[in-house]
Structure formats: structure tokens, C-alpha cells
């Protein structure tokens, strides 16, 4: 079984200048590993939609690698995304699914079906390829090759669950941070600082 910390470290080592769209527990660990905050978006507001945002970025900027750090619970809430992504088949899109079988941020309740094999589902939907890793050594060895293959690719990582027991205390701060992250990323990708304030946080 892999830890979130190790998985994020390994992904970051192969990241280059890829955009990273994360959500939930992945965001907490990715923020510690990432050294390119202007290329990161943590989806806290708009639950389960990290893959849809990442897919949109991948379609809009086909020369830029896009990583999505998704989870099993989030993916189950937006399962049609697999068919949507497979249909347009962005070659620059890499979809990581952290599989721990539980809803971490709400205290560790089990998913409706903890045994779903997401790599197999993605393959059946038409992803270019899909992989599943249960130990960090295999994941570390394989990842550079996977990221040089054509997407869309789904990479399922079996991780040790980290059920949160003290309540979600970062939600408001994360929600308020999202509009800033979206604007910083647009500025980085387009070299334009043209998106002014809007919404309840800016």
C-alpha cells in the first residue's frame, strides 16, 4: 500500500511544467510536494469536478501536460467523466485516482462499492491506457514511461486511507483560494492578466 505523501512526491519528481488539478486529501499532500503553485488548482468548491476542470485545460492547451489528482469517492460522484474524456481523447491528460475505499474528509465511511477497479473501468471506456499500482517502487519505476506515452491515461494508486477525525477546517480558506488559483493559472498559461475580480471571494 502507498502513502499519499510518497505518491505525491513521486508524481512531483516527474512533473516538469505540467498543470496539476487536485482535490480533497490529494490537495493537502500535493501542496506540500509541489514547487509550482502557479500551475496548481485545488478543487474544493465544486466537489468531484477536478477531472472535468483538468480535462478542459487539456483540451484548451494541447501542448501542455495536465495531471489530475482525483480520488475514488470523487470519481464515483462524476463517473460519466471517464466516457467524456475517452470520447475527446486528449493525449496530454493523465488521470491519477487515489483509491482508499473510503470518504476520508468526512471521517472514513466506506464507499458504496469499495472494490471498484478504476483502471479497468477507464480501459473499458476507451482511455488510451490504464495502470494500477499497489507499491511505491513499481509506481516510481513506471511513472516516467507512462507520462511519455499518449493520453488519456488513468493511473490508479492504492493508498492507505487517512480518515479525518477532527472535522474539515480548511474548507472556507480553500474555497476562497480557488478563484485566485484559477486566475494565476490563466495568467501563467496565456501570459495575460485579464481576468478581474468576480464572485463572492474576490
Amino acid at each position, binding site marked *: 500500500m502507498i502513502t499519499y505523501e510518497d505518491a505525491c512526491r513521486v508524481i512531483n519528481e516527474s512533473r516538469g511544467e505540467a498543470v496539476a*488539478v487536485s482535490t480533497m486529501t490529494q490537495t493537502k499532500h500535493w501542496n506540500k510536494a509541489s514547487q509550482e503553485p502557479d500551475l496548481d*488548482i485545488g*478543487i474544493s*468548491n*465544486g*466537489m468531484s*469536478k477536478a477531472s*472535468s*476542470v*483538468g*480535462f*478542459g*485545460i*487539456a*483540451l*484548451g*492547451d494541447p501542448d*501542455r501536460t495536465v495531471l489530475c489528482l482525483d480520488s475514488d469517492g470523487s470519481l464515483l460522484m*462524476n463517473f*460519466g*467523466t471517464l*466516457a*467524456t474524456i475517452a*470520447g*475527446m481523447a486528449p493525449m496530454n491528460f493523465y488521470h491519477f485516482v487515489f483509491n482508499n475505499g473510503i470518504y476520508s474528509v468526512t471521517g472514513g465511511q466506506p464507499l458504496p462499492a469499495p472494490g471498484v477497479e478504476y483502471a479497468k473501468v477507464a480501459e473499458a471506456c476507451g482511455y488510451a491506457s490504464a495502470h494500477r499500482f499497489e507499491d511505491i517502487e513499481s509506481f516510481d519505476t513506471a511513472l516516467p514511461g507512462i507520462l511519455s506515452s499518449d493520453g488519456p491515461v488513468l493511473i490508479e494508486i492504492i493508498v492507505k486511507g487517512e480518515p479525518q477525525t477532527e472535522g474539515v477546517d480548511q474548507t472556507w480558506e480553500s*474555497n476562497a483560494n*480557488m*478563484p485566485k488559483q*484559477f486566475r494565476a*493559472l*490563466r495568467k501563467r*498559461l*496565456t501570459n*495575460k492578466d485579464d*481576468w*478581474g*475580480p*468576480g*464572485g*463572492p*471571494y*474576490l
Partner: protein
Amino acid sequence: MINGVLHPKNVVEQLVELGVSHYVTLPDSETAHMYKALMDEPSITLVPVSREGEAIPVAAGLFVAGQKPVVSIQNAGLYEAGDALRGLALGIGLPLVMFIGYRGHNRKGDTPDSAATFLEPFLHMWRVDYFVIESDDDLDRVPLAFERAAKMNQPFAVAIGTEYAKEGE
């Protein structure tokens, strides 16, 4: 009674003039002819989604990447997309024009279709400004919707209150 018709070719022409790059959609019965017209327009990429809730986040990603997307979904699908509208359009101040199929709409106000009954109250409640378009005569509202969305950094809805005409009608 709605006079006049709404021709998809005229709407597509406007979208091209406005520089729209992507049309993110889940087709519905009222917009079938619009879908067909868009398939013949090479400058706009059709992005089909599996469920309406994906459409707004996909558009948000496209916008971040420098593109100019629009969303086209039916009113019933907009209700399904509520949390995405809240978190990823209103929540980030996304200047996005959303074409919403106004299923069940008529001017008498006696529609038996609750999808129509709730659309305008829904948009008011969610603080989304909108125009209703029922024929080619109303098409001056489309560029205005883009202006408003960009000026306010907010989503703006264009409710399509009639079925798009078939080519030749």
C-alpha cells in the same frame, strides 16, 4: 404564441463572430438542429459531455487555458448542474455564457412542464442574469450576453425559448 423562428445557422454565425472556440454540450430535443449546424462549423469544437454537471467545470478549464467556450444544456440539466454552477462559475467569477434550453416554455405561463416553471425563479435565486430568446429577432441579445458576462465576471444565461428550426424552414 411565438412569432418567427430561430435558425441555428444565425446563432452559429454569431458565435463565430464572437470568437467562440468550444461548445460544451449535452444535446436535448429542442437543440438537435443547432447541434447539426455546429457539426458543419470547423472553427468551433463540439465537446459532448456525459452529464450536464460536467459542462461548467469543463468550460472553466477551457477558459483558464485561454479559450472562449460556451455551455449549452437544457433547463432540467441546469438543475442537475447546480453545484457546479455554484462552485465553479459563481464561486470563481467565471465569465461564461450558458445557452439553456427552455423546455416547456410558452408565453401563457400555463405550462404543465415543471422544467419550465422553475427556470426563471431558479436563475433569480442563483443570481444569474439572463435573456430569453424566442426567434431570430431576438439575436441582438447574444453579443450583449457576452458583454455582460465579461463585464461582471459572472455566468450569464441565454434561455432558448423555442425549438431551433430545421434547416430550410
